């Protein structure tokens, strides 16, 4: 007898349980459950502050260093120490490489496989090319992360006060520069696929009927690590003075990540209406642009780092205090807050981009099924559209199961 996981929600990191209840072609219920939260905060309470950055890499295997850098900076604020400029540059470089790696997973190995269905492309050919290109780009980022941070997932070098170790770039940069051209070819190919998504018969179903509020900590100088938290609600960017304001926003539709970052940049460069993103599928294009930007940024920074020497770590001045930090992780703004007493963590709070996006993801998911059913699509296709939409959001769900459809028709 054959065994199959019931309607698995495939091609996401971890997985979630989505229950869609449809009655007489109307969505009765759509639940997105995260069955097991790994409760990392509980684990970190009571630990020595200096050990925290090495532990938080275990929160996520796709963006471990975003967590490490965010924890390091929050603790630095609590202990009144500022990382030397050299350490901050290395952190920016690591984050930028992590953007390449994480976005490549989402694009090549998870999301863009949907082009088979959306564009009627040859499944085998597309899968083959996606994997080939994806692995090219991912391996490029991996090699650089191994050089700078000791590996693509761990151990990382960011710590309280700066870096544990100063990476030696040396002559390896010449080999890497040769590889960039190949990586850009792969990105160009992916860009063409993502552009073609607008020709899909399903494209309009992914239109954004209302623009969600956008959240980012990206600075105007595109600094991913020293920003303040900002919200855009259709008119202008407003800084959130206190984090409590975020609680109110969490009950509404908000979106963090590439769209928020690129809107901020485009408005800064006086594009009147920001980026013309009215369709969720265009998020793939934004991720591709972010990869290309990150490639150029990383290579420039590497060339500078090659000749730099100097202080890369400072000693904290205090043993107790409160610190908060916003870091632009690949999926959006990552928030860390911590309270330290005599070098021991009394409390710590982590708000991930997926948590910020969750309310809008749920609302949009329901909407996408409803639209498909209204257009007369079979339930199966409506559910496929739902899965596609979830992948476009690029959720990082650390725990797992399946998508279950209860169809009462």
């Amino acid at each position, binding site marked *: 007898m054959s065994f199959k996981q019931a309607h698995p929600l495939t*091609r996401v990191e971890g997985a979630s349980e989505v229950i869609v209840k449809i009655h007489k072609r109307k969505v009765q219920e759509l639940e997105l459950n995260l069955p097991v939260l790994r409760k990392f905060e509980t684990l970190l309470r009571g630990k*020595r502050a200096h050990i925290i950055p090495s532990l938080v890499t*275990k929160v996520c295997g796709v963006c471990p260093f975003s967590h490490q850098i965010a924890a390091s900076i929050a603790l630095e604020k609590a202990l009144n120490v500022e990382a030397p400029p050299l350490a901050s540059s290395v952190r920016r470089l690591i984050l930028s490489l992590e953007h390449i790696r994480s976005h490549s997973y989402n694009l090549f*190995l998870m999301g863009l496989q949907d082009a088979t269905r959306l564009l009627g492309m040859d499944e085998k050919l597309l899968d083959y090319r996606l*994997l080939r290109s994806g692995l090219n780009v991912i391996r490029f980022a991996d090699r650089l992360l191994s050089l700078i941070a000791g590996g693509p997932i761990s*151990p990382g070098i960011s710590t309280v006060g700066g870096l544990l170790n100063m990476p030696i770039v040396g002559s390896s940069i010449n080999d890497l520069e040769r590889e960039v051209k190949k990586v850009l070819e792969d990105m160009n190919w992916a860009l063409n696929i993502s552009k073609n998504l607008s020709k899909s018969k399903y494209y309009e179903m992914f239109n954004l009927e209302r623009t969600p509020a956008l959240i980012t900590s990206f600075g105007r100088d595109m600094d991913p690590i020293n920003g303040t938290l900002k919200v855009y609600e259709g008119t202008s960017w407003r800084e959130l003075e206190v984090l409590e304001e975020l609680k109110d926003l969490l009950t509404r539709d908000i979106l963090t990540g590439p769209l928020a970052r690129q809107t901020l940049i485009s408005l800064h460069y006086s594009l009147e209406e920001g980026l013309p993103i009215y369709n969720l599928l265009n998020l793939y294009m934004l991720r591709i642009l972010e990869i290309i930007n990150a490639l150029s940024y990383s290579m420039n920074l590497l060339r500078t780092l090659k000749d730099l020497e100097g202080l890369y*770590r400072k000693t904290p001045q205090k043993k107790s205090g409160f610190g908060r930090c916003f870091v632009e992780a690949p999926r959006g703004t990552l928030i860390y807050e911590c309270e330290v007493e005599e070098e021991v963590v009394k409390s710590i709070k982590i708000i991930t981009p997926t948590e910020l996006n969750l309310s809008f993801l749920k609302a949009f998911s329901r909407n996408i099924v409803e639209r498909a059913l209204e257009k007369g699509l079979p339930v199966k296709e409506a559910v496929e559209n739902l899965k596609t939409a979830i992948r476009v959001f690029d959720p990082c769900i650390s725990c797992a199961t399946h998508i279950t459809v209860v169809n009462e028709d």
Partner: protein
Amino acid sequence: MGLKASKIGFLQFIGCSGCLTSVIDSSVFRELWNRGYVAFFPMIKDGGDVDDCDVLLIEGSALKEDEKLLKKVRAKARRVISIGSCACFGGISSNVKELELKPIHSIIKVDLELPGCPPPENLISMLLYALIGGREFKHKTVNVCSECPFHPCRAKYPIIIREIFPKRKTEQCLLEEGILCLGPITRAGCEAKCIVQGGSCYGCMGTLKDNSLTSLIDFLALLTIPKELKYDVIDILNLYGKREYVF
């Protein structure tokens, strides 16, 4: 092991996806994919069936509720391999008491365990090559110290532990400096990456000897741990969920 595997499945339970992304990052993965060895990999592939697998690699620890699914999967797959410290020991989240996360071998029979957080890329490649070639995968029989650039340790016994994490860069054995390092009782294979980068070894690769408690007692006998660091040291010993260490 013995039998050649022509279909390999990959499944994730409660983990961070780091072990499975390490599999994808490994040098052998593209070849496995292109030659049709990958039967089942929900993280990046639709469809597939556990029935098709000669070997099933599992990432992540499991809850009691997962028992039914794990048993079903075990009955279908000819061999099961746990990859990563969560699947092998329960992992870092198994320290969260209310979750009760368990290693896979405590629920179903596991044929081989490859620990690490995540397991090193070269070991993953060696394992996958061994599986498709029908060869036995052999664990290293030496400790992390054998791969450490600061070996040998010239510390005088007993070693007084002053810190559990290096606060400054060191160019000598961490234990020599009074910094806790589990390298001596941890299986090699990681090239002492954490130490090379300025951190310390917390034993994600698992213990060297079969009897981990004996090796732990031997190791602890060499150390003097001040009262104020006692609980920190216990935390580190249990970090990846080596339950047998709890005393």
